[in-house]
């Protein structure tokens, strides 16, 4: 379905780097933003596997659209779902599920990416609630968001233990959108600066409890990582099929280049890795649905799938020869989009240390 709906617009979204309003609203009308949420709220009560399939298909069509839509489905709305008051749900969550309002999450700052405990955005308690002061950067959908879930610290000395998430709605005095980052990857999903200049929010806008923010994020972190693994699969498969088509059609030295061994090698390696990534990803999703997922499996799925995607888009660009450079062909868009996957949900470097630290404590492969 996404093939028909979104794929024809992928290049245009990439070139213009504009928010794809029409497509966004269409997905809302079809009910996809409620995938993970209960039917009572207008959702589909879908399991992790289903959601991952959705992420994969989105990415197969357009990475920009995928970034926007997955934000809407998960990170941008989940805190309101879990901790929001009925009023907040009515005002933000329900419309978001219907695609009428746009949500996003803001934790990254200019000096703080992997190191969440080092954020400088402060939330200072006062008699009216909290004042949010700080700057966020790289916020997906930030320029069009109607509401933002903002990570701010009530006690910086506690680092991770001082973080809380706060709901800030568009129109709140002091909350504004800063610069938009021009980028080469996941274009269409604007990543912008958000400025919180003494933004007063009521006490009830604290999502959950003070200082528990990192834990709350951790609760959905595995799901985020599996979702991104799904995005990786979508990109990899899309690029792979483009490469395959080229290898079948392009001729040199009298025959299709796919008949030459070195090209065959690429095809074989890509296919095997994509299959492996698929298994790792959907196995992790299945474990989640069963209730026995550990953080490590999610990290492994994300690591492997995104690295596979980057491998595939590189090889596909090589198969295309000089046409891998031409903007007219999608090979270069896939190539650029791969970069985005390397950071969202944790860089490969961070993930490797997470995985290893866990394994050092206990491993499936320990000899007892």
């Amino acid at each position, binding site marked *: 379905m996404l093939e028909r709906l979104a794929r024809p617009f992928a290049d245009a979204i990439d070139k213009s780097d504009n928010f794809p309003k029409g497509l966004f609203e269409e997905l809302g009308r079809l009910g996809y933003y409620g995938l993970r949420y209960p039917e009572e709220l207008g959702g589909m009560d879908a399991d992790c596997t289903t959601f991952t399939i959705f992420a994969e298909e989105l990415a197969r069509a357009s990475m920009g659209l995928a970034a926007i839509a997955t934000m809407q489905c998960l990170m941008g709305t989940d805190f309101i779902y879990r901790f929001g008051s009925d009023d907040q749900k009515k005002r933000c969550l329900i419309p978001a599920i219907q695609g009428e309002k746009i949500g996003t999450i803001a934790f*990254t700052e200019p*000096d*703080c*990416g*992997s*190191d969440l*405990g*080092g954020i400088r955005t402060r939330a200072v308690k006062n008699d009216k609630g909290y004042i949010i002061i700080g700057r966020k950067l*790289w916020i997906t959908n930030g320029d069009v968001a109607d509401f933002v879930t903002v990570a701010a610290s009530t006690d910086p000395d506690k680092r991770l233990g001082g973080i809380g998430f706060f709901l800030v709605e568009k129109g709140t005095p002091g909350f504004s959108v800063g610069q938009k*980052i*021009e*980028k*080469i*990857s996941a274009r269409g999903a604007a*990543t912008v600066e958000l400025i919180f200049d003494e933004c007063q929010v009521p006490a009830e806008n604290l999502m959950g409890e003070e200082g528990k923010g990192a834990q709350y994020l951790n609760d959905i972190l595995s799901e985020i990582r599996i979702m991104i693994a799904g995005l990786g699969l979508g990109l990899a498969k899309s690029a792979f099929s483009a490469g395959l088509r080229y290898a079948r059609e392009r*001729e*040199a*030295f009298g025959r299709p280049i796919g008949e*030459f061994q*070195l*090209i065959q090698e690429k095809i074989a390696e890509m296919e095997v890795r994509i299959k492996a990534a698929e298994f790792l990803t959907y196995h992790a999703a299945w474990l989640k649905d069963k209730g026995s997922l550990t953080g490590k499996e999610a990290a492994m799925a994300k690591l492997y799938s995104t690295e596979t995607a*980057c491998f595939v888009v*590189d090889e596909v*660009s*090589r198969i295309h*020869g*000089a046409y*891998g*450079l*031409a*903007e*007219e062909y999608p090979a*270069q868009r896939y*190539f*650029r989009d791969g*970069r*985005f996957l*390397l*950071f969202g949900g944790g*860089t*490969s*470097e961070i993930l*490797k*240390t997470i995985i290893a630290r866990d394994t050092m404590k206990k491993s499936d492969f320990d000899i007892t």
Partner: protein
Amino acid sequence: MDFALTEEQQFFKKIITDTVDRMVVPKAREIDEKDEFPWELWKDFTKLGYLGLRYPEEIGGMNADPVTAMIFYEQIARGSVGFAQSVIMNILMGTYFVYRFGSEEIKKRCLYPAMKGEKVATMCFTEDQSGSDLAATRTTAVKDGNEWVINGTKMWITNGPHADIATVLATTDPSLGAKGLNFFLVEKGTPGFSPGQIIDKLGCRGTVTGELVFDNVRIPEENLLGAELNKGVEYLAEILDEVRVMTAAMAMGIAQAAYDEGLEYARKRIAFGKTIGNYQLIRAKFADMATEMEASRLLIYSAAWKIKEKLPSRLEAGMAKMFATETCLKVVDEVTRIWGANAFANEYNPQRHFRDARFLLYGGGTHEILKDFLGRMLIGKS
């Protein structure tokens, strides 16, 4: 073995590094963003005289040996790949056959001005259906009286619309395959010679790349650039190794530019209380990058030296090209990872190096072709 550059070569390296830093580096981002031929920089830079790098002093060149030339290619690519592409065209591929086979009249009209940057040169080999497979060239050259008539369409031509002089690969007889190929000089303004569609590119922006159409283009017989007919492939072999090593040198230029960016970032970006240069995984990246860049440079200079000494260099040139390119691709990839999300912001340089490096995969031969060719050389006839 003396691996050192001579004092003269070291001095040349210092000068050209400074020159590129002052003139080219500050313009690199603009060249990439505008994606137009940088006429102003071209005028300023060509005044310095470097376009005559490889040609004899007697005609106003520098008579640089291949090793010295590689130093130049690396630095100019480090400055700006888009600009470097145009520069190297005038220095080598776009002018070589004119230098080698052109009459004095032709040299006066084409070569000497090209060496001063007064004329833009390019070479036209690739066609829509023939990149690696030169034998599949369909552009024809038919003798008619004392003229040649050229017909065909070339593709992926650097600076086609701006080129004042074009060295065109055409066949006198398609059925002869590679044995029918020749080089012809076609000058701007010749009726029937016109630019076609322009290709928007991911990287190497700053050169205008596209189609060139030859529609019954008539050129005088002296415009055949060759002592004998149908020896095009042999003549190409004269500079093929140099072109490959040059590509390898450019790969190091791009790698160095990216590497320096990575170094700066690793030294100042803080995460979890320290600069990221303190973490093993980041340190490992630098160790790997530096090792492979060092190995690449040794291959490059060894191959260049062999060319200089007129020793067989086919194998080494191919090795240098592949290894240096793969190294460069790894370096630009790792640097984008070191930079985190900032790597894909247009505002910073790592994304430009990441995009620019791709052309290395085809310039001078794709790696698949090279591996097959070198493997065959190594294994021998069987």
